[in-house]
């Protein structure tokens, strides 16, 4: 039998699933005592080049409350052509098309290696993808120019039949009509007045009665392909739109000194949402917001236009000093929910040096699965490449995006779903497998993910139903089925079904087994997601305290120690890294707001709750590579002791990619040795991290901030803030030695943290 490591890896590769526990405790009480809940990380659209979709529809359980999909775990009676649902035990007849099945002629979905399978549903006309650009024109000339170019470029990346629309905004909002010849038409709205969806549709002439031809050009019915003048196939309006974008002017309204430009982001978004809502409900669509600053007027405004009023900071928020925060948040939430209901994703591309109100707007992306990209300027490669990557294609030439997904979770009766954390909204579907306890977004067994990428990963939390006195019988397996319906980027409707099963184990007798089935990486991420989820609503310290308590309890549960003897404390291998993850999580920007603006926090959290396990782990504990003449590049401890003069460090925090040249290296480089032929090796040394970084950059979305710095450089702070401050000005013993660089901080180091942890874990009073 393979190790759990291998098992986990296999499962992840096949199903995109990582469970916190790979043996499930058989009763609720035991599950609770395990501290880390029974849960998993699921990547619904994990790229599976080896998984060809099948061209038929899934076979469903006929029980109305179940409707589980036929899967390898089902018992099949090939003679009787009957299968038993493994979730509800309903016996179902195979449909007529399965008449030919037999032991040797099994459909794919019954084969064990197809525990994850994808169906292509041939239903209804294919609906083209829709991209609605919502462009802020209150930008600096350069920025606008760069943005225009990016947008123009993007047209060539879109599928030719995709519908594209353009809304520009500044003080006013313009909805551009794209199919007109000779004259550029647009509908204009003022940015200060909130409009109901009905009003918006009326004003855009989208109402049925108005279809008789507001502009003299009779509107076709909505479901027709030419349904809307504002959304036109790229192939048709390519030229027009390119010209239109080319002629796009900066918002012409004068901005008096001491004022911010008036930016009506709120209304612009509401119009975008309203427009799609009226024309293409329940069709895959992206609303892509490009903004260069905070909304300054109208509903959803984040800050007034007076420059003397700074944008809210965490300090303001904590002091309840952020005037517009609640109102704006509420406004965008309502918008996000509307968009989500209609299956439309909202992306936010915010490029500005100052905050842009991501905190308020984050839910737009968070609830709809949209992207959030934060940069300093549209005129940076960070934005340009990230944006380009949005339209990246996979191995088969398909866009790495999917729309309008719904994820349904079915469980065997011993389990219930407590909730999900990720870029989704609840569909409020009550079912037999829905738990009363909520963790994350709960109370439902279905979630909507309006926009997905292959990396989109949800955390799902379960609850064991059985009471302590009626545990699940041994030897059984609990199963969970994930049914994801979505619109593929090639406009097909697809359904991906993943069915997993884990053994039940009695926590008292098999605690060792359970311990060894612990997936500390997944658990760290799952706990972190819970923590982040809590942090959205709770005060930071409370969350930290909660995390700490969980950690201590976990250590108490699984640690081996003598009471009150910290030195005796040991953790098994399967848990050994967990405390360290927690240590770094505590320091991470997901939970620490110090030194981060609210926007940044939102940005980090946004990505944290949607990336897959690997990326999430990087975010929690950045990876540090060291390059030296002494050997090949090696990962080193994320510790200040790793900062040595003759090393080049490459740190990947997911959001930043930092290349740090040690003091000596930096001096050499400054001296230009790399230019000298004899020092070719030095040149190679310098090049090595760059190449590695390039590799990371190639795959990373969004593009990380790329920092090339050196010892003493101002940007070195990115590195210094991440490493474990094992050496600080407080423990001077290493000061000045070659063992590393001291960090000027009062933060506790990992050592101190561990010491305390041990102390608390072994403490009998805890």
């Amino acid at each position, binding site marked *: 039998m393979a190790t759990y490591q291998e098992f986990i890896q296999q499962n992840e590769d096949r199903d995109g699933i990582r469970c916190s526990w790979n043996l499930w405790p058989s009763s609720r009480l035991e599950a609770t005592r395990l501290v880390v809940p029974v849960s998993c990380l699921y990547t619904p659209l994990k790229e599976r080049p080896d998984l060809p979709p099948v061209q038929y529809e899934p076979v469903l359980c006929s029980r109305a409350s179940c409707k589980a999909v036929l899967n390898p775990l089902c018992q099949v009676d090939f003679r009787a052509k009957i299968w038993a649902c493994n979730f509800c035990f309903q016996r179902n007849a195979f449909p007529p098309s399965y008449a030919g099945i037999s032991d040797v002629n099994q459909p794919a979905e019954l084969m064990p290696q197809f525990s994850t399978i994808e169906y292509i549903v041939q239903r209804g006309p294919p609906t083209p993808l829709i991209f609605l650009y919502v462009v802020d024109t209150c930008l600096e000339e350069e920025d606008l120019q760069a943005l225009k170019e990016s947008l123009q470029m993007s047209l060539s990346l879109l599928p030719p039949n995709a519908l594209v629309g353009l809304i520009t905004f500044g003080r006013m909002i313009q909805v551009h009509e794209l199919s007109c010849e000779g*004259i*550029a038409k647009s*509908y204009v709205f003022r940015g200060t007045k909130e409009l109901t969806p009905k009003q918006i549709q009326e*004003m855009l002439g989208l109402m049925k009665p108005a279809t008789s031809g507001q502009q003299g050009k*009779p509107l076709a019915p909505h479901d027709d392909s030419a349904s809307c003048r504002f959304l036109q196939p790229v192939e048709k309006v390519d030229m027009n739109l390119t*010209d239109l974008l080319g*002629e796009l002017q900066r918002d012409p309204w004068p901005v008096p000194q001491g004022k911010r430009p008036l930016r009506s982001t709120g209304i612009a978004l509401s119009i975008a949402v309203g427009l799609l809502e009226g024309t293409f409900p329940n069709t895959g669509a992206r609303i892509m917001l490009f903004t260069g600053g905070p909304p300054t007027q109208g509903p959803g405004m984040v800050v007034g236009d007076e420059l003397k009023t700074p944008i809210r900071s965490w300090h303001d928020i904590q002091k309840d000093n952020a005037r517009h925060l609640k109102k704006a948040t509420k406004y965008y939430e309502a918008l996000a929910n509307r968009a989500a209901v209609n299956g439309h994703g909202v992306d936010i591309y915010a490029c500005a040096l100052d905050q842009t109100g991501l905190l308020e707007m984050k839910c737009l992306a968070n609830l709809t699965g949209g992207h959030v990209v934060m940069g300093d300027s549209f005129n940076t490669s960070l934005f340009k490449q990230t944006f380009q990557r949005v339209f990246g294609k996979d191995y088969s030439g398909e866009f790495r995006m999917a729309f309008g997904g719904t994820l349904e979770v079915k469980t065997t009766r011993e389990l219930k779903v407590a909730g999900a954390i990720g870029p989704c909204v609840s569909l409020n579907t009550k079912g037999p497998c829905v738990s009363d306890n909520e963790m994350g977004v709960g109370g439902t067994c279905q979630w909507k993910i309006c926009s997905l990428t292959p990396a989109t990963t949800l955390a799902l939390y379960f609850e064991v139903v059985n009471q302590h006195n009626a545990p699940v019988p041994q030897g059984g397996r609990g199963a969970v089925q994930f049914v994801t319906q979505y619109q593929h980027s090639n406009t097909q409707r697809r359904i991906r079904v993943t069915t997993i099963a884990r053994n039940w184990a009695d926590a008292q007798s098999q605690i060792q087994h359970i311990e060894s089935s612990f997936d500390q990486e997944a658990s760290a991420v799952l706990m972190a997601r819970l923590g982040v989820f809590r942090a959205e609503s709770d005060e930071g310290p409370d969350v930290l305290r909660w995390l700490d308590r969980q950690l201590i309890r976990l250590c108490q549960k699984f640690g081996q120690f003598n009471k009150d003897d910290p030195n005796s404390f040991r953790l098994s291998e399967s848990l050994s890294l967990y405390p360290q993850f927690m240590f770094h999580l505590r320091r991470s920007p997901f939970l620490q707001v110090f030194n981060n603006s609210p926007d940044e926090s939102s940005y980090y959290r946004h990505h944290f709750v949607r990336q897959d396990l690997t990326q999430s782990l990087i975010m929690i504990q950045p990876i540090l590579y060291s390059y030296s003449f002494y050997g090949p590049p090696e990962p080193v401890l994320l510790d200040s002791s790793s900062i040595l003069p003759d090393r080049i460090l490459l740190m990947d925090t997911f959001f930043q990619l930092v290349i740090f040249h040690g003091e000596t290296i930096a001096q050499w480089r400054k001296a230009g040795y790399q230019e000298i032929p004899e020092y070719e090796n030095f040149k190679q040394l310098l090049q090595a991290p760059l190449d590695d970084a390039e590799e990371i950059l190639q795959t990373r979305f969004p593009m990380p901030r790329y920092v090339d710095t050196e010892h003493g450089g101002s940007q070195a702070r990115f590195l210094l803030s991440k490493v474990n401050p094992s050496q600080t000005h407080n423990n001077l013993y290493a000061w000045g030695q070659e063992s590393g660089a001291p960090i000027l901080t009062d933060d506790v180091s990992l050592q101190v943290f561990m010491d305390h942890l041990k102390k608390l874990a072994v403490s009998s009073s805890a």
Partner: protein
Amino acid sequence: MNVNQQPHMASPYGQPQPGYGGGHVPAGYPAQYAPYNGPGSAHQQGPPQGYSPYASFPSKTVATNLVSDLSSSSPLDLGMRGPPTSGAPPVTPAQNYSQFGQGDTQNGPPPMGAPPQRPSVSQPYTPGAVNLSGPQPPYNQQFGALPNSMQQMTNQMASMQVGSTAPSPAGPGYAPPSVSHSPVSAAYTHSAPPTFPPTSAAPTHPPPTEGVAQPPPQSYYGAPHSAQQSFPNAAPAYSAAGPTHPQAPPPVSQQSFPQAPPVSQPPFSTGPPPGPIPGPRTHSYGGPPPGAQASFQRPPLPASHPAAFPGGPTSHPAAFPGGPTSHPSAFPGGPPPTSAPSQMPGVIPPQPPVSQPTSYHSGPPPTAAGFTPQGGPPQRPPLSGMQAPPHMTSQGPPMVQANHVPPSQPGMPPVPPNASMSGPPPQPGLQAYPPQQNGAFGQVRGPQPGYAGPYAGQQNYGAPSAAPAPAPSAPKRLDPDSIPGPQASDIPPVQKTRHRIDPDAIPSPIQVIEDDKANKGSEPFTTGVRGQAPPLVTTNFQVKDQGNSSPRYIRCTAYNVPCNSDMAKQSQVPLAAVIKPLATLPPDETPPYLVDHGESGPIRCNRCKAYMCPYMQFIEGGRRFQCGFCSCVTEVPPHYFQHLDHTGKRVDCYERPELSMGSYEFLATVDYCKNNKFPQPPAFIFLIDVSYNAVKSGMVGMVCQELKTLLDYLPRENPDMESNIRVGFVTYNKVLHFYNVKASLAQPQMMVVSDVADMFVPLLDGFLVNVQESRVVIESLLDQIPEMFADTRETDTVFGPVIQAGLEALKAADCAGKLFIFHSSLPIAEAPGKLKNREDKKLVGTDKEKSLFQPQVGFYNTLAKECVAQGCCVDLFLFPNQYVDVATLGVVPTSTGGSIYKYTYFQAPTDQERFLNDLRRDVQKQMGFDAVMRVRTSTGIRATDFFGSFYMSNTTDVELAGLDCDKTVTVEFRHDDKLSEETGALMQCAVLYTSCSGQRRLLIHNMAVNCCSQLADLYRNCETDTIINFFAKYAYRSLLSSPTKNVRDSLVNQCAQILACYRKHCASPSSAGQLILPECMKLLPVYLNCMLKSDVLQPGADVSLDDRAYLRQLISTMDVAESHVFFYPRLLPLQKLDVESTTLPVAVRDSEERLSRGGVYLLENGMNLFLWVGANAQQELLQNIFGMPSFNHIDPSMTSLPALDNPFSKRLREIIETIRTQRSRYMKLMVVKQEDKLELIFKHFLVEDKSNNGGASYVDFLCHMHKEIRQLLS
């Protein structure tokens, strides 16, 4: 001036009636008369009923009054009423007409009266006819005969008329008159002889009226002199005024003369003007020039007579009565013969025909005739002579006859002849009295000269008349009488008998206009003399600014302002000025000079802030100046100091416009600008409705096409420079489309704003652009707009947001400007300012009617206020197919100094020309933006009320978002203290505005008028046209707050008070029944009647609320010239058009009677232009005009005349062009064929006739007026 001797009525009537009754009845009139007589006594009572038709008159009282008047003039009434009351008259007239027209046709027709009368009369009269039988037969015969000749005659007539008209214009030229007369006479002889002479002559020559009018004047003038005497005779004849005049006149006339004398012309102007012809005549009488004055002096008397004339009509009635009564008395003497003749069955019968006609025409003349009779034989001669001349050419004959008659008494004989052979008689008469007749005719016009000589006797007569002073009353009566007499007998055949008032005998607007042209048109009008009334608006004259503003800028109702409020109240004459600050001057006059007083700005009085002007008195060697308005003394700034010469004038007085001119401009400094910064150049924004209706009518395409070229002609100050005005474009239906036409764009951008509830401007840059820079984009846009909306199905529109959009755009651009809105339908789409269809004809005539003129919602008032604050002027072009609620839509335009143009049932092919011309003019005209006007006055009076298109946020500042060269502001003044005769009353109108190039300027108009302590001075120096203008605006505004009926009543009432006051305080004592009108106001009744009959105050069933609201708002900005022609349309006879001449033919009076079936007429009122073609128009004429061989071939739907290569066609088209250029709006030509359906519309503009919707005829109204006055006096 005065005259209508209704006074007679009571007693006289009583007598007369009996007399009449006796006479007539015996004659055979009995039946008719009898009833009438009954009325006579009972008339007053009865009449009302009978008058029911008159109900048309506003109030019953009026009706009653009329009745009473009539009754008073029972005899007259009889005659009068017969026609009017009977109601039949109107109808009958028509019938008559038709008949008549056919029968005697032109000539006959002209007589109008005759025909109409005939029928009606004939019937009723038949009995009388019996008496008249004699005459009738003759008529018939005559007519019969005439027809032949008549047709010829018509032609001749035409020529005749022309001739006559010519003469009249020539009026001044004495010679002409005579000439004209001759022709006339000729005409008469021919046609006239028939019976027509009188009538026809009268009508065509209307001169008759003129004559009438003239007579009065003459009589006035003449009265004094022998000539006057002669006039007096005439006058007397007319109103018997003779007598009164003689008495009163003297004083009045003297007074007037006194003044007049100094300025011989002035007097003329005053006196003469009234009756242009009179002038001539007087001249002729008086003895040409020199004598003229003398004559003038007399004229004064006549003047009173003139009134008499006016009275004539009324007087007629009165005259009749008077005739009867007074005449009777007089008659007894000898006059009876004449008048009696006519009246008298026996005697009259013969005369009647002739004399009547004459009398009719000369209504007055008749009176005159009557006078002659009355005047007593002695007077008569003169009178007759006078009368004849003065009265009517037509009268001429009769008059002549009368005169002649008297002289020889043969009057009788002659009359008879006439009577007997209406035609022949006249001729005979004429022949017999060639000179006289001629004179008679000529008298009317040419005769004067001739007469002058020949009529020495007349003078004598005049003397007599004068002497008869006492008699005057009688004469007055006589006038009526005379009229009645002759008419009754003569024309009475049909018409006159009934109408006792001869339409020709009452004051004729045409006569007055022509007289004024003759007297004042020839030399420049210099403004240096304070209190000098300018020529009438109908006169072409040149103005020299010598210290007061040109009448083109300011016209006052009175140039002699009462010194104190008591007088003002007593007289009820409104004190108002009609100010047209940016009036366009003819090319030969200099526009106001631009004065720059440097950085400190214009020099102003410290206290009242009046601007430096010629009324500032420099003192202390020039170091200080005393304000002419408030008397405050202000230091002269050093840089403005100048030494004074020995007369106390500044040495540089004539170098500085502000010290020597009435009108000039100051360059304003930054202190005079909004927000203390110089304004941006203004902008024009075109907002075009592109809803289904607008597109379908062709409007959208047309506007866009036109704008492409029109944009090159935006107003500019320097013709060589490009205009600074920026333009912007918006289209809309139920949403708005803004266009970005920035020069740098490859193609225009359209921005749709659907959020009409909360309008805003979607773009800043590129909306308002310079035409030159963005030409390509703009043209591309204008090409595309029609295409884009060609298939639109959207029918709903908004309106409020459209204005808001323009306003917001101007606000955003921080400039003033003008919106051109092209709109098609009632804005029912959901938006601010949404309207409901509230057209409810049931409300018309009720107390709620006023609500129809009030805006439906308050939204637009608020909006207008905002527009004004920004300097956003709104011009509205409406293309409605149905009710659009002009009353509401017009609120903003009328509050912002904008205009409304309305093209109902717009059809591109037919209305294109009109619309495009209006648009061109509207876009190109000079205008000022963001203007504030303030009128400062001498201490003692104060501007209290303002009328026009503007907004006022306080009581003194008139705020005009835009002020163009057609806009007029009427200002009413009231006393708040006493004025002094020495200093007069000063007013200064200062308009601060932004010119089209963005320059801030102050336009100053100064006006000084005299002050008087005598009411007579006031009455001598006022201007009826201006008063009417004021009344109209006042009344039209009152509609908003009072029921229409009340408005009408109060108008009549005020006029009655004005006239009564004159009668009481200024006219010489005379019998109460006499109608005496001030010379200057003798047209007041006719014009007032026209106003009362306007669609606004008395709508017909077919007049939509929109039309009324539209007119109501239109009037509010009209200047005097426009309002004049609007109320009294210009009717030009074309059949005698002189293709060589550059002058227009003399107009004829607006009455169907004046139309000849053989003629072609052009009628215009500033809004409409009709070409009326008589059914019998000559083929050649039609060929010349239409290129069509016959009447039937003419296509009444044509909107322009074919360009034919013949002099007549060319000249006619030239005239039409000329007329169009004179008006601020382009008039679409409508061809109206006689007896065609369209003729009804046309007839609506014949304002002297009774109108379909109950408007009174001139004659009837005059009677009514007279009654009102009498009531006031008693």
